[in-house]
């Protein structure tokens, strides 16, 4: 095995170099003007580094070669496979040999290219969001899947975890019905599973269920009755007969994606929200009104309050939008610019006025926000009612 010999040689050189260096340093530490030992020290270290680099390089080369070989083998195999119908059966054993040979060994060390690809893939969280939305849309629109209760519960739990995060609902009483209880349990059991992980699991599960249904439909049709029976158990709650009559209660399956709709209607002028990566943690905390996280983050050093998202919205914009007065107060104290504008020229006060957040309007106005700042459409917070709202706010004088 030449490559092993090479590696052995590399290691040998390295060990020798390290030994030399150690010896040199030993001599160098002795008193007296022994300049040459210092050169030996430096030289030894350089040699050791060189040997290490050589060994690494050799190994990369080897992996590289192995991969190249894999690709070539695979191509070769495929060529043979496609010819196999025409060629005699004598080809078969050799071709299967090649298949075995081309089974890629897990590379001993991942090349930089692999790592780079992974890093790039990690950056595509928005792909996950898009996949998730597609899966959710599919589940919302389909009536064809015949799911067992366990599957339904799993779908339900992952959807909840992916959209809301950890289950924060109070545990339902048994009186509320078995199904509600089962759903709560399924969701709660996911514990601290991250929303992204839940999304991923949801996407995989939906894909798997689709595949199974398609397979079922292709196969025997006798699962219908049984599956139909199971279907009512979750949906039917404890009183499947109890809701017989007119309408049923329904609500939107998923948050409305303005970007989606505008994308449809206006040729994607706004761009879908799902084409953007994960939200900055600071902005996310302000969106949620999480004043604790904000304070903790501020304890580690000054925050970049000018930081804006893809639409030019700052932390203060998000806080104003959600009506999170505590967060906005903290941001203003930290020096956030109350007149910062988003890509449409709107200030936090525009947001507060549009959302009719009286207390927020008051806070911003008292902090010096400009009620007459014009946005891209020429609208001012005042025209949107900011001043009137502020005067009606409970704490107003």
């Amino acid at each position: 095995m030449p490559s092993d010999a090479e590696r052995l040689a590399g290691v040998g050189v390295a060990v020798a170099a390290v030994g030399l260096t150690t010896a040199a340093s030993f001599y160098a530490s002795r008193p007296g003007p022994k300049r040459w030992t210092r050169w030996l020290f430096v030289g030894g270290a350089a040699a050791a580094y060189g040997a290490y680099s050589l060994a690494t390089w050799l190994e990369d080369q080897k992996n590289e070669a192995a991969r190249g070989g894999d690709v070539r083998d695979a191509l070769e195999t495929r060529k043979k496979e496609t010819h196999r119908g025409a060629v005699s059966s004598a080809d078969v054993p050799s071709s299967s040999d090649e298949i075995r040979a081309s089974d890629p060994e897990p590379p001993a060390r991942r090349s930089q290219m692999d790592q780079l690809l992974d890093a790039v893939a990690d950056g595509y969280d928005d792909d996950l969001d898009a996949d998730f939305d597609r899966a959710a849309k599919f589940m919302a629109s389909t009536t064809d899947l015949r799911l067992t209760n366990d599957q339904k519960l799993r779908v339900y739990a992952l959807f909840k975890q992916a959209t809301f995060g950890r289950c924060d609902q109070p545990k339902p009483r048994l009186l509320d019905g078995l199904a509600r209880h089962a759903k709560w349990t399924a969701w709660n059991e996911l514990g601290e599973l991250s929303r992204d992980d839940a999304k991923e699991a949801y996407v995989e599960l939906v894909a798997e269920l689709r595949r199974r249904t398609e397979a079922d439909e292709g196969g025997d049709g006798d699962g219908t009755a049984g599956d139909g029976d199971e279907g009512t158990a979750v949906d039917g709650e404890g009183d499947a007969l109890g809701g017989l009559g007119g309408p049923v209660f329904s609500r939107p399956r998923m948050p409305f994606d303005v970007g989606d709709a505008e994308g449809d209607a206006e040729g994607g002028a706004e761009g879908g929200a799902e084409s953007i990566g994960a939200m900055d943690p600071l902005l996310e905390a302000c969106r949620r009104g999480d004043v604790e996280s904000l304070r903790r983050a501020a304890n580690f050093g000054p925050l970049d309050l000018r930081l804006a998202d893809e639409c030019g919205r700052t932390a203060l914009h998000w806080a104003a939008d959600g009506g999170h007065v505590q967060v906005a107060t903290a941001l203003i104290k930290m020096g956030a610019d109350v007149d910062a504008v988003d890509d449409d020229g709107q200030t936090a006060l525009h947001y507060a006025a549009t959302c009719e957040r009286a207390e927020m309007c008051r806070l911003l106005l008292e902090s010096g926000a400009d009620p007459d700042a014009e946005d891209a459409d020429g609208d001012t917070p005042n025209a949107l009612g900011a001043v009137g709202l502020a005067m009606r706010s409970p704490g107003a004088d």
Partner: protein
Amino acid sequence: MADEDHERPAPSDLAEEAGRSFAGMSLDDVKDHAFWETQPVGQLKPELDKSGPEGPIDDPMTVDEVKKEGYHLPPSFEWCTCDVTDKKVNDEVFELLDNNYVEDDDAMFRFQYSREFLKWVLQPPGYVKDWHLGVRVVGTGKLVAFITGVPAKLSVKGKKLDLAEINFLCIHKKLRSKRLAPMLIREITRRINLSGIWQAAYTAGVVLPKPIGTARYWHRSLNVKKLVEIGFTHLHSRMTMSQTIKFFRLDKKPATPGIRPMEDKDVPAVTALLNNYLKKFAVAPVFDEEETRHHLSMRDGVVYSYVVEDPDKPGKITDFVSFYSLPSTVIQSSGGHSTLRAAYSYYNVAGKADLTRLMEDALILARQKDFDVFNCLDLMDNAQFLKDLKFGIGDGNLQYYLYNWRLHNKLGPGDIGLVLT
């Protein structure tokens, strides 16, 4: 229909009894089907399905053959007829439904039919008081269960059927294990049969044997801020409230020239417009003028109806839109909101106007009436406008059923022209 007397429990009932003893809860999936498999409805299990031509499933019966006495209830319960014009009874029915009727899966909202609504929907022309059936506790007289039928005329694939529309099957939460639901259905069937009516139409959220069609709810935000605050909907994580409010903003006034509230003088024109439109659907009601007057006249807080009077030809009614009001209690009230005000699309006919524009006006009118959300099933021609008008798909399916009427193929939502209240 009224197939057997249940004084002596059938073996299947005994099995149900055993199954239900678990924690006092009913395992209804099993029970329901055990019940529905005895009924003249399409069956989910193919081996149980009686084949035959489209039409009645049961052999024809006469009124004389119908059992004259009511079915026996468990001791301590008794039947009653609920006269909703009686203020006290109306209150009792309202309270039973208000506390025990349809909820969402997360127990956040529960339908709250108003007293006025109940009076309206239960007393159409020709209504039969006996079909407003209640169960009371012997002694205390407390109303604990309810079911209703009202007469209606339905066209099913061209055949005109006089049938009953079944609604408001509601059982007190603490009595869900008492096998009352099948008893209520049997008893109301008997009472309806006594009037010589052998078919019924009803809807439900669950799949029972066997839906003739399925429609899906869609929802259009009118007051998105409130809808988010009460948890009816959620903001997309990258959308600001401000952006979302702007996105759902509607014009202040409807745009179709000549649109106005329906008046009594419009009844003949609306009746003609509706019947002409509805005949294209496989299943749809047929209204006479009295029924149109009852079901579709404007009643504040209950049903809202508008006509378009052609500005060029005064008196000529070209289009019609309507929606009814079905609020829900916000069970865990938040942000100071205790009621979700929902408008439900009812019957709409676009004659001269474009349906999408007409429905946008309906949204505007509903917003003017302070509704928070406009709900709409994807039946009739509704699929045409849902996306354009920013409706979002809902999590609720509505299954449509016919009792004692066989259809060979399941209908698509676009074949359904019936909206129940």
